[in-house]
């Protein structure tokens, strides 16, 4: 409860939370405001924003409602951000926990694998995965998750390394606990706060990765995503710049919101670090 109080004491964290709630509200209310398919033709192409009350944010080069795509795009971005982050954190925690707890050859093997992933630039690896497995929403989400786990793994491992020799873990061992119990019930809850905070970074990066993929027209073309819209706007960037700019702002706001929430969580969960 203290952590909640501390969180709401920071204006930046509260602002981030409000922005994030707005984005989530957009995602939830998309079907209610725009019952029609957001990718269906709605009117004349390239209507400027605020010039036609039917299309508040204008239309893109093929005459689809930008506002509808922004609302539906929030669903896609949050879905990919959330699921990919969950995948990355899950793999990261498992790899990091076992490497940090057991040490020795287990640690060596797992860390060499982690390093192998880290030496490849995320995005290049993501391109390869999408090129091999195709670009449906499911594969893109899993691929983003699979390229994002090394950092949380290293973080979890570092926490485990410092926690595994604490006296309370030794006490657990003298009580007769099994290794699995020690790892997941004793050490992990104590190692979790920094990993949760880092999850916000993973989520922001996941949203950006998907957008970048869509910009290259390698993401799923059958869903309304912000990245797809930016990719489309590329063709008319010099005159009708708003087609790319509006989803760009949406991405900026969402990533900013997630980062601010992450920073707020960090200060709330690790209060001693604040103000130093």
């Amino acid at each position, binding site marked *: 409860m203290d952590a909640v109080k501390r969180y709401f004491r920071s204006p930046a964290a509260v602002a981030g939370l409000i922005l994030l709630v707005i984005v989530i509200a957009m995602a939830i209310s998309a079907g209610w405001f725009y019952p029609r398919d957001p990718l269906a033709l709605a009117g004349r192409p390239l209507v400027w924003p605020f010039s036609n009350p039917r299309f508040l944010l204008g239309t893109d080069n093929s005459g689809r409602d930008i506002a509808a795509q922004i609302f539906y795009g929030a669903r896609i971005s949050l879905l990919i951000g959330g699921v990919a982050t969950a995948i990355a954190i899950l793999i990261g925690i498992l790899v990091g926990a076992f490497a940090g707890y057991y040490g020795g050859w287990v640690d060596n093997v797992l860390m060499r694998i982690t390093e192998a992933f880290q030496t490849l630039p995320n995005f290049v690896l993501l391109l390869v995965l999408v090129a091999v497995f195709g670009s449906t929403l499911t594969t893109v989400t899993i691929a983003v998750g699979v390229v994002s786990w090394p950092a949380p793994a290293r973080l979890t491992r570092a926490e485990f390394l410092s926690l595994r020799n*604490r*006296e*309370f873990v*030794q006490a657990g061992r*003298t*009580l*007769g606990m*099994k290794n699995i119990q020690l790892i997941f019930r004793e050490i992990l*809850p104590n190692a979790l706060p920094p990993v949760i905070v880092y999850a916000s970074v993973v989520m922001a990066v996941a949203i950006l990765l998907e957008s970048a993929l869509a910009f290259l027209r390698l993401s799923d073309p059958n869903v309304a995503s912000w990245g797809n819209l930016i990719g489309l706007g590329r063709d008319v960037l010099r005159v009708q710049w708003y087609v790319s700019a509006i989803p760009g702002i949406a991405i900026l706001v969402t990533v900013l919101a997630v980062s601010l929430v992450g920073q707020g969580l960090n200060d709330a969960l690790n209060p001693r670090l604040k103000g130093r």
Partner: protein
Amino acid sequence: MSEHETILSLDRLSVRLPGGADRTHALRDVSLEIASNEIVCVVGESGSGKSMMANAVMRLLPNEVTIDDGRIMFEGRDLCAASMAEMREVRGDGIAMIFQEPMTALNPLRTIGDQIAEMFSIHTDLSKSEINTRVLALLADVRIPDSKVAAKAYPHELSGGQRQRAMIAMALALDPKLLIADEPTTALDVTTQAQILKLIRDLQQRRKTAVMFITHDFGVVAEIADRVVVMQHGVIVEQGTATEVLHHPQHAYTRQLIAAVPPLKAPPPRALAADNILTISDVSKTYRTGGFLGRGARVTPAVKNVSLTLPRGATLGIVGESGSGKSTLARCIVRLIDPDTGSIVLDGNDWAKMSREEVRRETQHIQMVFQDPFASLNPRRKAAELVAQGPIVHGAPRAKAIADAKALFALVGLDPSAGDRYPHEFSGGQRQRIGLARALALKPDVLVADEPVSALDVSVQAQVLKLLAELRQQLGLSIVFITHDLRVAAQICDLVAVMKDGAVVEHGLAGEVFGNPQHPYTRALLDSIPGGAFAREHKV
């Protein structure tokens, strides 16, 4: 003391804590005087505000903590009103400070000589070669062997005692009028502590420095103090000359503190059972680190051929200084560490030969209590859960285990309703009781206690020792008690084994080892106990 001039006087000094602390003021109306050529000991338990006072004098308080009343007069100047620039002049030059942990107080990336030379280059304009000579002279003065080598050494290359000597050299570099020593010997072994106390005494007498010596240990007070100031909850409850305070304490709190100092005399020996519950024979453990294909590897024998026996229902004390291997031995006994050779026979089973899985199943026969009451409890579990964990692991139903845990709370002197609280809501002594309850929950035959009272204040220490003695009687426990403090060992142990460099140098009945030590090392240890005469004489 009237022939000496007053160096520092605190006049109704009050220091305010930020809101949300357990009290509004860290210090309230503190008045005291320190004259040149005297050592004033400030004694108190943790949280009494003694360190806060030292930091207030140096104006090194944390940001949210402020001096809200009173004056700090130093050489006719009020330090409360001094600017930051003026304070920088005073620090190091007028008032110097030594800290508890020399490893963290020294910069690990610069040599000792460099760090001492810095004092001169900041406050004086001596030439490089002059500074160099002064540094070497200082190091010789604090009796660091081979001062030329020591000046070029980095902090991690020196032992704890030598680091503290280097800190003292640094503090005394500019001949300060006042030296503030904040628990300077608490982190050191007894023999080193005795040397450092003697060194501070000698230097102080030679240079006529005023010393404010902060400590929690009445033994140290008896050893070194001219005058004593006793603090409790940020208030001075008593001050006077050392003899007055130690032998005729006026305030109830002072009396309580002195009574809590364990006397260095074993209680009358108890009858010991004829059969041994635990037999340790020829246990060795050697650590090997580094090295490639056997080249350049460091081999450290931590425990060498130790053989000891523990009669049923008795308490075996294992005493020694840091690095003597006593903790490694304790961890070998409970198999947190696997011994290389030897046997540890408990009730006919050789624990040294069992597999990890067997040890895990048999672990209810032997349990351990850990040193640090803050680190040994999982901060994310409630107290009752912590205690119930062991039985649950060994198959007890959860509801019953929690109910039993509450009963154990009463046994170790805690409120049974406290089970729903988290460890950070308890004091150090209470946490140690939780740790004890956790070990007892499995109804062990043997309890291995690794420095169970070392992190506690003296008065709490006495309570926990009393509790252990009661439980031993009540439950028929056999205890292996690891400690570095001979006074504590004398309190509770029937048998004592003295360890040095991994080997047992002497063992026998507590009364015999303490009353008639045979090995020179045991004698050195006993002689090093601060305030030895006081500890032997004073009555509980």
